[in-house]
């Protein structure tokens, strides 16, 4: 990114924090959290202790960071090195990223750039650059409406599992648009506060259905059909057994028959490795594809709600109604003022209800929010 573009972006961010500091959500128990930020130009500054909301907001205006983060954990002394902070507990957090969903539309809107010869094309990253055969290839992942819609669907499934299976209340759960390609979910509850990494690992696996085994659903290759049948799940059972019965009901064409008989029939006609795929499909359909490293890492710092995402210029926004939330409208906080930029390349995109692009190597006059979006992604530079 050119110096001029970097300076402009920093200025846009500074203006936002100056004018809209009220939109930055000050986390509860601020003095027990670790803060960190990434300045424009690279690097990461961590292990900061911030005592008050005023101090936080002053820091944001002064530094105008590329990204700002606060720990989901609480510490005795958050300003000390990690080993000395004294972990007290932490919110339970989940991250759903559109990239991880591997949507078919990725091939239509993701780009790759060869770091050696500069060749750039739309599509999934090839093993080697077709022009120079080099393997050093950078990818540029994009999130379209379909990707963000699919991410939202994962959020809804996650919320349902947390409420139904884990008995978490709607009040304890807060959903945020991440500011770029997905959603974050925070659970603030005394019940879950002191769960260690192992427990958080198990929760991440549970909500995504990872590690489900045949025996959980009553299947066995060592017992007779008659003995196995009563062990199989029926519709209405709680947990993954119930979800499996639901999955089996809608599996194939025969949708009316008894779920146990149908499951047993599929089991007896399918090779073991293929039947495992039926279970994996259940997990995919009913589970939520969360990033396990985020949920399990109790020392991670998490993007601050209301702050701007350096890779998009969009804000991390609280979604009070996930169903009606539209990230490409509701998370656009930058002003409308027009600016001319040189766009290297970009797919068609839509912000604030307006559609832009596709553009390839051209100067374009764009509203500041759209120009910021492209510059943040490294796809545009301030026009000379």
């Amino acid at each position: 990114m050119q110096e001029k573009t970097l300076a402009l972006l920093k200025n846009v961010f500074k203006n936002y924090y100056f004018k809209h500091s009220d939109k930055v959500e000050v986390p509860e128990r601020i003095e027990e959290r670790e803060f960190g930020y990434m300045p424009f130009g690279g690097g990461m500054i961590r292990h900061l202790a911030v005592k008050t909301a005023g101090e936080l907001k002053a820091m944001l205006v002064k530094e105008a960071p590329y990204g700002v983060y606060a720990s989901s954990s609480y510490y005795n002394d958050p300003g000390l090195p990690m080993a000395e902070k004294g972990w007290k507990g932490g919110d339970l957090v989940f991250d759903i990223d559109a990239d991880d969903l591997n949507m078919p539309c990725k091939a239509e809107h993701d780009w790759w750039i060869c770091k050696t010869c500069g060749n750039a094309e739309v599509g999934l990253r090839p093993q080697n650059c077709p022009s120079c055969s080099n393997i050093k290839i950078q990818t540029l992942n994009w999130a379209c409406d379909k990707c963000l819609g699919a991410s939202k669907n994962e959020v809804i499934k996650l919320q349902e599992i947390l409420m139904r299976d884990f008995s978490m209340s709607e009040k304890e759960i807060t959903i945020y648009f991440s500011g770029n390609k997905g959603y974050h979910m925070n659970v603030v509850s005394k019940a879950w506060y002191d769960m260690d990494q192992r427990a958080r690992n198990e929760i991440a696996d549970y909500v995504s259905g990872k590690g489900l085994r045949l025996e959980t659903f009553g299947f066995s290759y060592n017992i007779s059909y008659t003995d196995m049948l009563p062990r199989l799940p029926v519709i209405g059972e709680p947990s993954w057994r119930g979800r499996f019965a639901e999955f089996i009901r809608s599996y194939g064409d025969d949708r009316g028959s008894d779920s146990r008989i149908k499951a047993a029939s599929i089991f007896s006609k399918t090779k073991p490795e293929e039947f495992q795929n039926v279970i994996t499909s259940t997990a995919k359909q009913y589970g939520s594809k969360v990033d396990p490293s985020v949920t399990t890492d109790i020392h991670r710092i998490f993007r601050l709600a209301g702050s701007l995402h350096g890779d998009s210029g969009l804000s991390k926004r609280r979604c009070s109604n996930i169903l009606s939330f539209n990230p490409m409208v509701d998370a656009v906080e930058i002003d409308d003022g027009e600016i001319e930029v040189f766009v290297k390349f970009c797919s068609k995109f839509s912000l604030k209800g307006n559609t832009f692009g596709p553009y390839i190597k051209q100067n374009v006059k764009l509203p500041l929010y759209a120009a910021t979006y492209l510059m943040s992604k490294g796809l545009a530079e301030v026009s000379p």
Partner: protein
Amino acid sequence: MTTVELDAETLAKYPFLHETGDYIRRLQFDISELTKPENAKVVQRAKERVLEAIKKAKVSKETANIEIEILSFPLALVFVRAAGLEHLMSRYAFAEAMRVESFLEREKTSTVALIFYRVTGISPEFLYTKSFEFKIPVTEYLRRATYFHTPEWKLVNRIVDNGYVYVKKLELVRLTREEIKNLIHNRLHTLSSFKTPQEFQPIIEELVKSSPTPIDAGEEITVTPDKYPPCLVRALELLQTGQNVPHYGRFLMATFLLSIGKSVNDIVQLYPKVPDFNEKITRYQVEHIAGLRGGRTRYKVPSCRTLATHNFCFRTQACGTIINPLQFARQKPQEKKVKKKVARKDTSTS
């Protein structure tokens, strides 16, 4: 859960309960009296408890003389504490917990629930279904079951409903065993040290001598590339073909290779083909993992379970029952032995 009076027979089975102290006080018994000849059987049983732990990893279910059984438990704790060996403390706690488990397995569900409550402070709720006898809060389940490695204990394979996990009677017994092991282990650590009577010194010396030398878990082992676990092989393959190695793959590679004696340099040199390679950053990260930077914590090789959560477990049959990739190289000779046995059997029957 309502207060229940426990009789001496129950205390003999479960001597770690706080009522044991009351029982001993009622007998107006003092440790100094244990050196008297009339208490030789108590001393003998206490010594036997520890020796059984060392030799069989399980204390026997002796209840012929209730008083001896109750009094010998705290004395055995004194012996183990006086021996001052950490691995003996762990082994003894485990062996006593195994003893309790074999009693509990035969108890009524109400007794199982009561003992669980006594050691955890959590009242399991009765379910009265064919498959499950109890349910316990999911948070309490997670605090305990995450230490078990078999897949049926994974939360995803449990029935989780409305904040509770369903458990069978024998599963609650297993959870209780773990809790008792920790309880006894903690008690051994917090036992106030006092001067052990001189008469017991020969016993303590004998226990120290009988206790096997522990395996040094932190010991550096030599592993040749042909004995690398499949997950590490996968990470190295990705590196060599210039593909992106996910975070946990990189973490595994660094921790594993450091554990088997490779240097930071050796590890950094593996990375240049990675698309986002930056030597300075890679070196910093490997040094951080090696405990040379930041908090100076040397990171351990992640467990197979953690790698599975992060989609970096490529388990094959050769992995057997290992729970950490470092165990892969260690378990191979055993496999070969099994294969040889099978081969011999085949020859003899042909």
